[in-house]
């Protein structure tokens, strides 16, 4: 959808006019913008601060080689992958990025040695640390969304991502006790999650797989229905219970009406297949066709129909239970009890890409990269405000550069007096602070960096304590 009017040279004056943001920009255009992006917008120092995990300071226990053992992978223009890039420190990383202007930057694990020396070490070159990561992609939901497919994303299917973020975030914090969790928009059609706790970074492949499986309920398709990993006991696991509660709210408030799943069509038929009894389905259809339902205007038709469906299932349940004095034949009651949660889970529960999480050495795109096809920046998300996120309103490299130009001209943005001059304190010019990038970086700081810095300090203190205990430090009093 190339908007020809947008094909303007970047450093041209746009006369203070900040053009409409958000439309996908042609690929070539995006790549041409990268040098400026990396020069002025990409938050190099924040990234370096994050990935150093406290080892960049002067603390006695700081591992000065830590940063150098991290693998980066640059994807250069023309799909050229350059793996096993390593840098001494944040400054070196910045120089390399600005020099080579990669279309994409991936972050890999921290190895036992500098990745560039890996051939010297043979089998002993192994990953030692790596954040716990998750990747959720809307393409995996194509069978349950009606607004589009493939790379499509819009306000109607974004709620699926939002609810996934909420469920996984809550699970990571409450069930597993993780604290330093960063959610990032992946640039086109999904989200990534980086869990940066020290304990998370040390997890083995087996433990990572365990976490991924803890959250995995959707196990592929079978006979046109999603297979849910329910054992079908009399109860659901409390974690699943909680997830279903969150899901139910989102289902009723946004997902169901937005996706129009109960309006006549193949998706509706597919949904009805989850009901265990054919008579039940027929009753529901009859009621849907009834005048009282059709004539309702107060509510979205999908919600009306859903209400009918729920009521029918419940009345069938009551009937079955009372028939056999309370408990009811489990063979009949069980599926009835389960069908509604099953529908909701099948249509809305998070669908993780298991392979991404399982292995320590999986490369994942770094935050603040620019998506080469859409020009959108991979901005961090605040999990508490994920419902308000609009995937169509994500800053693109074009829009940011326009903002910069506007700010330079002194127009548009507010008090930009401190824009391009380095202040006396020695802080380098940070032009991005005048653009929407500032918001993104702020989220980064708030959700990850601020607390991480404290934890890093604690880690170093702990290392000192251990060293003293082992007697490696001689403290003479």
């Amino acid at each position, binding site marked *: 959808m190339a908007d020809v009017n947008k094909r303007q040279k970047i450093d041209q004056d746009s006369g203070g006019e900040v053009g409409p943001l958000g439309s996908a920009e042609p690929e070539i255009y995006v790549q041409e913008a990268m040098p400026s992006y990396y020069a002025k917008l990409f938050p190099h120092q924040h990234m370096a601060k994050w990935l150093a995990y406290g080892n960049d300071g002067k603390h006695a226990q700081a591992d000065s080689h830590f940063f150098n053992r991290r693998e980066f992978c640059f994807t250069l223009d023309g799909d050229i992958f350059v793996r096993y890039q390593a840098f001494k420190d944040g400054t070196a990383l910045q120089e390399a990025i600005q020099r080579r202007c990669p279309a994409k930057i991936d972050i890999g694990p921290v190895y036992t040695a500098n990745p560039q020396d890996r051939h010297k070490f043979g089998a002993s070159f192994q990953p030692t640390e790596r954040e716990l990561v998750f990747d959720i992609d809307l393409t995996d939901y194509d069978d349950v969304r009606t607004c589009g497919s493939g790379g499509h994303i819009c306000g109607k299917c974004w709620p699926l991502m939002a609810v996934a973020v909420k469920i996984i975030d809550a699970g990571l914090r*409450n*069930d*597993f*006790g*993780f604290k330093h969790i960063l959610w990032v928009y992946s640039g086109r059609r999904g989200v990534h999650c980086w869990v940066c706790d020290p*304990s998370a970074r040390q*997890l*083995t492949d*087996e*433990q990572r*797989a*365990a*976490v991924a*499986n*803890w959250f995995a309920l959707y196990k592929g398709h079978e006979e046109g229905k999603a297979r849910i990993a329910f*054992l*079908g*006991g*009399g*109860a*659901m*696991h*409390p*974690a*699943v*219970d909680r997830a279903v509660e969150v899901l139910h709210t989102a289902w009723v408030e946004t997902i169901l009406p937005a996706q129009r799943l109960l309006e006549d069509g193949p998706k509706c038929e597919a949904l009805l297949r989850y009901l265990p009894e054919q008579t039940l389905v027929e009753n529901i259809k009859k009621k849907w066709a009834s005048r009282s339902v059709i004539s309702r205007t107060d509510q979205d038709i999908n919600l009306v129909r859903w209400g009918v469906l729920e009521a029918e299932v419940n009345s069938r349940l009551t009937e079955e239970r009372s028939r056999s004095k309370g408990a009811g034949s489990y063979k009949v009651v069980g599926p009835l009890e389960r069908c509604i949660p099953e529908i909701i889970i099948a249509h809305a529960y998070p669908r993780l890409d298991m392979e991404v999480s399982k292995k320590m050495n999986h490369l994942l795109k770094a935050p603040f990269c620019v998506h080469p096809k859409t020009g959108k920046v991979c901005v961090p998300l605040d999990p508490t405000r994920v419902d308000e996120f609009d995937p169509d309103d994500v800053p693109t490299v074009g829009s940011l550069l326009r903002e910069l130009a506007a700010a330079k001209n002194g127009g548009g943005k507010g008090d930009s007096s401190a824009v391009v001059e380095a202040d006396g304190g020695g802080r380098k010019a940070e032009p991005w602070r005048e653009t929407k990038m500032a918001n993104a970086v702020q989220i980064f700081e708030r959700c990850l960096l601020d607390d991480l810095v404290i934890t890093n300090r604690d880690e170093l203190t702990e290392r000192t304590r251990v060293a003293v*205990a*082992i007697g490696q430090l001689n403290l003479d009093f």
Partner: protein
Amino acid sequence: MQVLTSGKVGPAGFTPLTGAGTAANAPKDGDRMLTDLSMYTFPPSENITLEEFERLALARLSVLKEMEAYKLRHPNKTEKELMDKLKQLKLKHMRGLAGVSAFNHEEEVRNDLISHYVLRLAYCRTAELRKWFLAQECDIFRLKFGTYNPAEHEAFLAAHAPQYRPVAEKELLEVMDEIVKVMKSNLETKETLVRVLQDKRFYKVSWTRVPELVAQRKVLLRGGWAYVSRDALAPLVVAEFRAGVSKGLSDMARRWRQMFPVEEEQRLQPLVASLTSRSLIADYSGVTTKYGDVSAANLHHLAIRHFPLCMSHLMGTLHSERHLRHGGRQQLGLFLKAIGLPMEEALLFWRSEFAPRTPSDQFDKQYAYNIRHNYGREGKRTDYTAHNCTTIVGFSGGVGDNHGCPYRRLDETSLRAALSRLHCDDRKVEEAVSKARDGHYQLACAAAFEGIHRVPELDVGISAPLQYYAESRRICTERDSTSAGTTAATGGAVEGTDVGDQPGSAAGAGGAGEQPGGRGVKRPASGLPGSLR
């Protein structure tokens, strides 16, 4: 741990392994005293004599091997019965080894620890040895852990596995509902639910230690803690035990060269290396004096009655083919020497057996030297010992070879035929065949022994043909002496049939036993009719 030769202060022994912790973290002796269950995380650190080193190792090895044999023969014993057997074995083998007569708890723990570590040394070198050792130790640990009462569990966990923290009552009240839901969602039976609710003992452990439970959502997670019931605890603890010992074994194998400083290469290292192949039974050399009636004349009788299948099979083949290949000659020849056949008698026997096909001078040229060599009268004059079962089972042979262990070599039909020829009880034949099929050759031999002699179970397995022979003779001697005075009608010639006692001085108290009355000593002519098949 230092190992001294008795009495002398010897050079430093092998370097102690560094455990997971430092001196600061090692449990004090007082903690360990609470229970004799141990994870063996820290090696012992004291000086002991070489004798004790060896004795403890062999004692524990006996316990492990006999426990294994017992379980194999009685697959349906309850935990309690197995535990009783274990206690009995420990009493039998590991009692009072340090020279102290009183059997106290402290000593038990100490012996347990030392013997475990010495066996680790012996069994760490190859994957197969490691696998066996690990399997035995884990079984015993699981058994012990399973039979301990809750108080002992708590003590053990507090001392050896502090990562499992008991859940306080107050906290338990909060999470109990959710735990029940977790169990229901995992389709736990009602009985399990009831039992767990009554027991009310829960532990919490960091989720990273139970990834397999997390992956299947089998536990409640809260803030990184996984809640496990006491029931569920056992497999976890056993798994940790297994992981710890396994890691210890592989570490030891990797650092093998560092284990032994140069001085020990001649002293400790051969000792440790020999532990795995050592015969665990008492030395049966006394058999030659006890039953000193072995001569070329009565070998055939002895063979039918008292030889294990490997040897009687060889005897049979020798007799029918008038020849044996080298492997068979060695295996049988050394055995005959071990049971007390004098060299002259041996030469006589072999020559007469070979006679129809091999003229005498050819025999002298080709075979006599070898026989003399076996008896240590030629060449470097080594006194060769007879082979034990482990070695014999390991023999490989081609077509036309008859040595090795028949339970391994022979197919089932031949095995059945051979055993019934020896008049083994049918049920026992089946048992022997099935054990042989599963690869437990020595247990098959023991089953055959029981079937032939009509004795209830042998306590110890068969670990050498000589042992089979000695036991067989002992039993028959005892039977003879108890049934002294019973005379039965004279029977025919020597039928390889019924329960027979061989003639000869060892029959002792003139009792005819169940046998047709006293037979004289017959000098079997070459080619004894059909009695040896």
